[in-house]
């Protein structure tokens, strides 16, 4: 997403982001509770949230499951060293696979890290993830110079964005 597309948040939007970054209040009228906390009308809270959703500042509103708790006990970050001139075509094809949840072109860090294509694969077991990684390997074919899979073995922290209040918030 380009920086030019960035929507500018005003002071009230910022207060709304800060008030909801830990989650939506679990009460019957959550937007009314936010309105009271921020000191604006409930209708304005709802209108601003709708606008933030439409402009993409909010990707979505809902539940964020813990992957492990819903059965995705294996989570592999597959990483691939592919030619830079081929990466966009390969990235679109790999990203189109239904079991790939994230797919990015990232920089290599030579000599430690030769990989430039990252594709996240979730599954119920390492065996299942490795089978999916083999399916990616077939798509990439001879364009793959080397690849690896890094399995996550512990969630060390998961909080999401933390916007700190400014003096004027």
């Amino acid at each position, binding site marked *: 997403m380009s920086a030019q597309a960035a929507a500018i*948040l005003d002071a009230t939007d910022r207060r709304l982001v800060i008030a909801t970054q830990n*989650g939506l209040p679990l009460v019957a009228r959550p937007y009314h509770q936010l309105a009271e906390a921020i000191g604006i009308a409930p209708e304005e809270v709802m209108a601003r949230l709708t606008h933030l959703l439409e402009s993409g500042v909010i990707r979505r*509103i*809902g539940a964020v499951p813990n992957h492990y708790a819903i059965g995705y006990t294996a989570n592999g970050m597959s990483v691939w060293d592919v030619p830079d001139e081929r*990466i966009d075509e390969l990235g679109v094809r790999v990203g189109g696979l239904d079991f790939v949840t994230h797919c990015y072109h990232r920089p290599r860090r030579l000599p430690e890290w030769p990989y430039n294509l990252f594709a996240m694969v979730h599954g119920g077991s390492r065996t299942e993830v490795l089978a999916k990684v083999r399916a990616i390997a077939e798509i990439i074919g001879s364009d793959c110079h080397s690849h690896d899979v890094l399995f996550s073995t512990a969630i060390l*922290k998961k909080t999401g964005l933390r916007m700190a209040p400014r003096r004027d918030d």
Partner: protein
Amino acid sequence: MREAAPIDATDRAIIDGLQGGFPICERPYAAAAGSFGISETELLERLQRMLATRVLTRFGPMFQVERMGGAFVLAAMCVPDAEWLRVLEIVNAFPEVAHNYRRESDRNGAFNMWFVLATETVDGIDAAVRQIEEASGLPVFPFPKLQEYFVEMKLAVRS
């Protein structure tokens, strides 16, 4: 890995059905509860329980940091086992660290701590990288995305 907390069919339907599209209206939980055949109160209770048992990590808006002028960058470190706990405490104490995972592979065991830095400004990433390097005494390797081909975090509950 901890044992997952037990969830029933209604919980599963809620997780699958509420990963997005939560209504913006006066009584949104009441509006959403109908499609699961439960009351507003029961939906609230189930969400509270699933948050308390860590089946859900959050419930609410998911922000796209880049659209607010900020940045979201993956970074990695090679942390020796003997220093793991010390470095983990230092890294996790930074509010800019939004997620942190231990990752291991047989081939590239060196990069074993992978975290996402989320900052309100693009410049904040470099500052956070420098601060983490200074505090830990170890190099931090940022992996900014050069191109995004696909992002879709919605995963259905496996039965």
